[in-house]
């Protein structure tokens, strides 16, 4: 018997801002229940928002969607959203940390903060994705993911509700793939099923 192909990836990080509700409700339900990687999401939102977004995403997704809790392990099959008003960071032992450091790019949670810590934690075993948004958060973080050998995806700006954020990310580094939301979903599924070999072709 041949051993199952080892998935070279350990995690997916997603950054999204204006237009995110629609983008996430399109993308995340495409992931199966037992998706083999943890998915960490920063969606910009108001400091005083409640967990409405999380709850409504959890209802429509097969994977479990929840707010990231301090020190919990990032587990496969789970989508973790940064809580309102806290930065989300990843530790090298794949647990999650929260912080209330200053806003970064006027944002807390900030996409750059998540992406940078994830880039250090997972290096080449990370997939970083920048979706719709009207600012430039995530650009520097995606560039670092790229620099440390990770795989970088950006939502096709022509199809994004707000194209500034995807465009800023594309300017900051040579991204690996520019895709529409359903294609990103298919891509993530592909990687989930068979590892990088098929997905990269």
């Amino acid at each position: 018997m041949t051993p199952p192909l080892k998935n070279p990836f350990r995690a997916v990080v997603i950054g999204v801002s204006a237009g995110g509700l629609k983008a996430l409700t399109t993308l995340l339900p495409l992931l199966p229940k037992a998706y083999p990687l943890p998915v960490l999401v920063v969606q910009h939102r108001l400091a005083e928002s409640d967990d409405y977004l999380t709850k409504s995403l959890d209802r429509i997704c097969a994977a479990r969607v929840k707010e990231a809790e301090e020190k919990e392990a990032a587990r496969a099959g789970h989508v973790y959203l940064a809580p309102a008003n806290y930065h989300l960071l990843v530790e090298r032992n794949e647990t999650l940390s929260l912080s209330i450091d200053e806003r970064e790019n006027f944002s807390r949670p900030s996409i750059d903060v998540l992406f940078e810590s994830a880039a250090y934690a997972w290096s080449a075993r990370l997939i970083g994705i920048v979706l719709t948004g009207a600012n430039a958060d995530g650009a520097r973080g995606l560039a670092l993911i790229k620099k440390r050998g990770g795989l970088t995806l950006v939502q096709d700006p022509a199809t994004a509700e707000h194209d500034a954020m995807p465009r800023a990310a594309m300017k900051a580094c040579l991204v690996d793939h520019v895709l529409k939301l359903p294609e990103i979903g298919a891509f993530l599924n592909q990687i989930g099923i068979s590892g990088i070999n098929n997905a990269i072709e």
Partner: protein
Amino acid sequence: MNRDTEQIEIDLLLEAIFKRYGYDFRNYARASIERRTRRFLSKSGCRTIPEMIDRLLNDEVFFGGLVRDFSITVTELFRDPRVYASLRRQVVPMLKTHPFIKIWHAGCATGEEAYSLAILLKEEGLYDRATIFVTDFNDGALQKARQGIYSTDKIKEGTRNYQAAGGKNSFSDYYQARYDAVALDGALRKNMTFANYNLVTDGVFGEMHLILCRNVLIYFDRELQNRVFGLFGDSLVRGGFLCLGSKESPTFSTAADQFETVDKTAKIYRKRS
């Protein structure tokens, strides 16, 4: 740079700081410490971490800058208004049964939390029997706490929060506008004692009826959190209250069984008697 080399350099940096100055960041949540280190390095004028270590060992002023940078003093007046509403409802009635009360703000940053609670105590007629310890390990922040002067933006935010927290008066009763800033009423400071206190290295200094330590423990790793929860357990009277930040709880710490939950959302706990 090789990732492992950077890890070693950061370990050495934290070790050097501890040995030279006694400030112990070795058990802080690592991702955040690494981020602060890279940030501090980029604005320090040093090219490498070893160069920075060398300078830190010899230059106390430079080290002062690092402490300011590593200590995140982001705070608000009546931050999380629901917490103050809950303190009023669930903690104040118990405090009222004591002839005198001791309160400790651990990690007070620039003092907003201590003044907010002082206002609540005044409105509940409890202020005069309270001794309030206001502590942080950042002297610069403590100095600001002692002054109680805040920007008009902070006061605006505080006013909104105060109302949401169920304040009984008008927030403007508690401050005087200066030309470009606002000074909180000095009477709020009367029973406050300000002191430098390091949660990692200092010990028990009294028996408290209420400890507030909000948004500090998220910066610590599990091991250090365990230590500090133990310290709080030892610093509370039986039935004393512990109020944490909205993402913190003793539930998964080794001291979990010392505490019972009073309000899960407001993160208010109580030492079992």
